[in-house]
C-alpha cells in the first residue's frame, strides 16, 4: 500500500521537506496551512510519507514528538536529544508478524505453561 494520490499531490504542491528518519520515512511541513480554530501555538501542518506501508508505529519517538507539535524543531536540528546508549532501537508494532508477542504457554512458544487449577497428570501406557 502506498500513500494516496491526494496526499502525494498535496505534498508536491505545499510540502517543505524537513528530514528523513532511519527507516526512510519522509517528513514534511506546510507553514501556511489554514489555522485550525483552537490550535494554540504552531499553525503549521506536519505530516509523514511512509517508506512502505502506512503504519503509525513506524514513526520513531523523536519524529513522533515533532509530528505532534510536542517540539518545534525537528530531531535533525536538535529538537529532541539523541538516543541514550541504553535506549533500545525503535521498533514498529510487531502484531501479525512472526515476532509478535505470545504469552507463556502459547502453542507457538513451546506450549509449556505454568501449572494451573484443574491440571492433572494423565496415565499413559509405557
Amino acid at each position, binding site marked *: 500500500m502506498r500513500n494516496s494520490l491526494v496526499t502525494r499531490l498535496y505534498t508536491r504542491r505545499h510540502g517543505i521537506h524537513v528530514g528523513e528518519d532511519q527507516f526512510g520515512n519522509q517528513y514534511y511541513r506546510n507553514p501556511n496551512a489554514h489555522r485550525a480554530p483552537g490550535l494554540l501555538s504552531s499553525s503549521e501542518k506536519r505530516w509523514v510519507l511512509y517508506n512502505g506501508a502506512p503504519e503509525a508505529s513506524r514513526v520513531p519517538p523523536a519524529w513522533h514528538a515533532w509530528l505532534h507539535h510536542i517540539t518545534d524543531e525537528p530531531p535533525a536540528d536538535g529538537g529532541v536529544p539523541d538516543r541514550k546508549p541504553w535506549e533500545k532501537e525503535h521498533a514498529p508494532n510487531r502484531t501479525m508478524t512472526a515476532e509478535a508477542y505470545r504469552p507463556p504457554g502459547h502453542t507457538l512458544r513451546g506450549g509449556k505453561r505454568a501449572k494451573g487449577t484443574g491440571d492433572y497428570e494423565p*496415565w499413559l501406557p509405557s
Partner: protein
Amino acid sequence: MPTLEIDGKEVTVPQGVNVLQACEIAGHEIPRFCYHERLSIAGNCRMCLVEMERSPKPIASCHMPAQDGMKVWTDTEMVRKARRGVMEFLLINHPLDCPICDQGGECDLQDQAMAYGFDRSRYEENKRAVPEKEMGPLIKTIMTRCIHCTRCIRFAAEVAGVEEIGAVGRGEHMEITTLEQAIDSELSGNLVDICPVGALTSRPYAFSARPWELRKTPSVDVMDAVGSNIRVDTRGRDVMRVLPRLHEDVNEEWIDDKTRHACDGLRRQRLDRPFVRNKKGRLEEATWDEAFTAIAKRLKGKTGEQVGAIAGDQCDAESMLALRDFMGTLGSPNLDCRQDGAKIGQGARAGYLFNTTIAGIEEADACLLVGTNPRREAAMLNARLRKRFLKGGFKVGVVGEQMDLTYQTEYLGAGPETLQQVADGKHPFAETLKNAEKPMIVLGQGALAREDGAAVLALGRQIAESFGMVQEAWNGFNVLHTAAARVAGLDLGLLPGTGGRDVEGILQGAETGEIDTVYLLAADEFDTSRLDNAFVVYQGHHGDAGAHAADVILPGAAYTEKNGTYVNTEGRVQLGRLAGFPPGEARDDWSILRALSAYTGQALPYDNLGQVRQKLIETADTFARIDQLAPAEWEAFGTRGKLGGEPFRSPVANFYMTDPISRNSETMARCTEAFILPKREATGTHG
C-alpha cells in the same frame, strides 16, 4: 439440672456443663480461643469473660461450672471492655500479616477482632518474634502468630495420644515447641483445624487457595472403612483440600491424615481416556465405542464360567450393583468383592459388621483386638478406643502383632492358638472378658483374610457367645474392615454364585486358561501378573497395578467425582457427592457398565442415578436408610474348621499408602519418608 439466668432469661441446662456452654444453650455466642468442646479446659485465653452476679471481676465462662441460681450477663459494658482489653493484649504480639496468612478468612482471631479489636495500636515497642518449629511434612508453623491457647498441646496429648508438643517459657516468652521432629501421629492434620490462628497451617495446601474461592461439598471418605464425614473443597474440578465434617457417631470432628492429605493423588496418574490393546500388544488410545466393541467382541460366544469379575476397595455401591447385574446378564457366577480373600460374607449380616458401632465403643468395658492394628487400619476408630480408654476401666487385649496403639494394651499372643486359649477360658484375659458387662471383640482383616479365616470367624463368634458379648441391645462382635467398599459389596451379594469362583479361584482360572476374561472394577490390591493369560478389562480412575495388566482400560471416576453410596464398617449407609467432574473422557462408574451392557446384548434396566438407587434399595433394603443404623440380626455365620498356626498380621503395613489414590499422592510419599521408613531401618531389616 441447674437453672440459671443468662442476660435476664432463665435457662435450664444439663448437669455438669460450664457457663460458656450454658450461654450457648441460651443462644448467646461467647468468643473463645482456648476452649474446645472435645479437649480439656485450659482457661488461659481469657476471651470468654462474662459478668456474674456477686463477682467483682468478670469470670472466664469456660472454666466456671454452671450452678443453680447464677446470674450471668454476656453483653454488658464491663464484659465488652474486658474482652477488648484481652484482644488488645493478644494483638500486641500478633503480626499483621493476615493478607499473606493461610488462615485468612477462616481465622478465629480475625473474626473476633472484628467485634472486639481496637482499630489502631497503642503498642510502641518491638513485637516479639518466635522461631519456627519443625512439625513434619503436614504442618507448617509460623510461630510468631501463636497466641498460646495450648489447644495443640491438649489435642496431641489427649486425642492423638502423642506427647510430642509442649510449651517452654512463660508469659510473653512462652513458646509452643516440639522435639524438633515431625509429629508422629496419624491425626496430626487436625492440629491445623483446631489452631484458632495461623500458627499451624497445612503445609501441602500452603498458599494454594483462599477459603472463599472454594466450593464446599459434603461427602464421605473412602480411604478406610470408617466412612469419615468430610467436606471436599474444590476450585474448578481440582480438589484443593479435604476437611472433616461433624458426625458424632463416626468421626466426631476429626479425620486422619490420609483422609485429609491424600487428595493430591487425584491429580496424578489419572486414567482419562479409554485404551485398547492393539495387535502389536501395545495399549492404544481409543474411543468409548471402540473399547466397548473390543470387549463385546471378546465376550461373544464365551460362557459365563469363562468370565470373572473382581470389585475393588473404593467402589461405590452403585457401580458394584451394576457390575453384579452385568455379570448376571453374562450368566457368570465368578464374582467377588473380597480382593484380600477374607472369608466373610457367607451368612448373617452381623457376621461382617462392626456391630458395636463406633459410638458404642464408649460403652464397652473390655475389648479383644484380634489380628488388627486399628491405628493403621482405621485411625478414627482407634481414636474412639483411646477416648474410651481415657475414661478408665477399659481393658484391651491384643492377639496379633505387638504395637503401640496410643493407649495401654495387654499383649496376649500372636496367633490363633492364643485365641483358642481365650475361647477355652484358659487364658487370664478370659477372666477379664467374663467379668466385663459389655465386652467386645474386634476381628481384623489380618485374622480373616487367610486360609483359616472362616475358622477364626467361627471362633470369634464362639468367644462372643460364650463371654456374653451378644446381649439384648448390645452386640460386642465386630469385624473391622479396611476397604470402604467391602460392606456395600457384601450387602449387595458380590460373592461367588453357586459353583462360582472367588478371587483366588479367578486368578487360578486365569493362569490355567479356564477363565478367559476378567473384569476388574478398580481392583488393584493383588498380584495382577497372575492375569497375564487372560483378557483383562480394567475400569478405574488411576493407572495402578490393574491398569498395567489390562487389555482394555475404561476410565472411571474417583470418589470425589461421582455421586456414590458407601457403607462403612458399621453398616452405615452414607452418600458421597460429586465435588468436581472426572477428568477427560472418564465417566461415572455405573454408567460405564450400563453402556457396556448395551454392547454385550442385554442392557441393564436403569438409565439414571435415581433408578440405580431404586434398584439398590430393592436389592438390599438397608440402602434405604441413609445414615441410620439398624442392629443386624444375630444369625448363623462362620464355619468351624482347623485353625492354622500362622501369627496374625495386620494387612496395612504403611498407613499412608493403602490405595491407588494415596499411593499416587506426593504428600503421602513424604509422610512415608518421614514416618515409616525411619522405623523400618530401626528394625534392622534395612540394608
